[in-house]
Each structure stands twice: as structure tokens, then as C-alpha cells.
């Protein structure tokens, strides 16, 4: 799923590891999301949105055509 996670993370000056620690997942999970290899659960998507003080829709774009 397309997302702006790396943009928001860079904006806040966080490393992948620091973000991972904050939302309670592994660094590899953050890396996989940023590379669009893994779609996070709804719970994690909300945690990430809360972390960056934005909406889930700001962070993630389902891009339905690409997933078909």
C-alpha cells in the first residue's frame, strides 16, 4: 500500500528504530511498510497516524488498482 511514512518520519527526524520503538513494532516492520512490502494492521496504522498527529488517510493511500 502506498504511504507517506518515510516523509513524516524524516520530517520529525526519527530513525526507523526510534519510530518502531514508539509504536511497539520491529524496525524491520517499519522498513517493510515504507518499502510498501507490508500493509500494517488498522491498529498500527492508527498508532502511526497518532504519532505524526495526522489522519490515517494522510499517511496511507490504499491505491486499490495497484493491489489488484
Amino acid at each position, binding site marked *: 500500500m502506498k504511504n507517506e511514512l518515510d516523509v513524516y518520519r524524516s520530517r520529525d527526524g526519527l530513525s526507523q528504530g*526510534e519510530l518502531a520503538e514508539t509504536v511497539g*513494532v520491529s524496525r524491520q516492520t517499519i522498513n517493510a511498510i515504507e518499502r510498501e512490502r507490508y500493509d500494517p494492521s488498522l491498529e498500527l496504522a492508527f498508532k502511526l497516524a497518532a504519532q505524526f498527529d495526522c489522519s490515517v488517510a494522510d499517511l496511507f493511500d490504499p491505491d486499490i488498482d495497484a493491489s489488484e
Partner: protein
Amino acid sequence: MTDSPATTRLSKRRTYRRLMYGSVLGGTAVSLLLRYFDYPLVGEAVYWVGLLAFFVIWKGSDVQLMDERDWALERRASLTALQLVVAVAVPGAAALRLLTWLTDYTAPPIVRGAFYGYIGLFIAFGLSYLWHRSRL
């Protein structure tokens, strides 16, 4: 330069995970070696120590060792493994039945044992699926 708490925690997570999987793999390897060198009881003990260490580290560590991506990977791996087993077991079992009916060939016990194992696996999967479905 000092590591941030996040880096320290991630490093601990990596260490614990390596210890967790290493204990099982190491325990199994040493156990096999001991059995090979004719120390079956010690080998069994080492195997169980490795296995128990896995659970102690998993449940006892103060950091979260698995996250949702790990569970997703396990789900995908389980599905792939089941599909592979189906691809081998279904035509394989049919071929063995046909061979038995049409010729006087009888599959060796180890092959029949493997197929019973596959059948048992699918029964366990079916029961587990039904149990989860009743809760979801």
C-alpha cells in the same frame, strides 16, 4: 556516541531473538550429535533444554520479541507450507492407491507413515480452523 534507548531496546530484541532461535537449533543439533555418538538420553535432555530455553526467553524477556509482521509472515508461511503439502500429498496418495490396486506394489511403511502424518496435519488444521471460526 551513546545509543538511544530505542536502539538499545531493538538491539536487545535482536539478541533475544537470536538466543531464542539459537537455543532450539543449537539444542537440536547437539542432541542429534549426541544421539549419533550413542548418548541418546543426554541428547534428549539437551533437546528439551533447548526447547524450554526458547519458551523461557520468549515469555520471560522484557521486550516484545514478535510483532504483527512476524505473525503475518507465519500465516503466509503456514499457507504456503499447506499448499505445498497438498500439491505433493493429494496426487501422491492417489498414485499410491492406484499402484496398490492395479499392481502388487505396496508402499514402504515410511511412505505410508508420511501420508498418515499429512492426513493428521490436515485433520489438526481443520479442527483448528473450525475452533477459530466459532470464535470469530
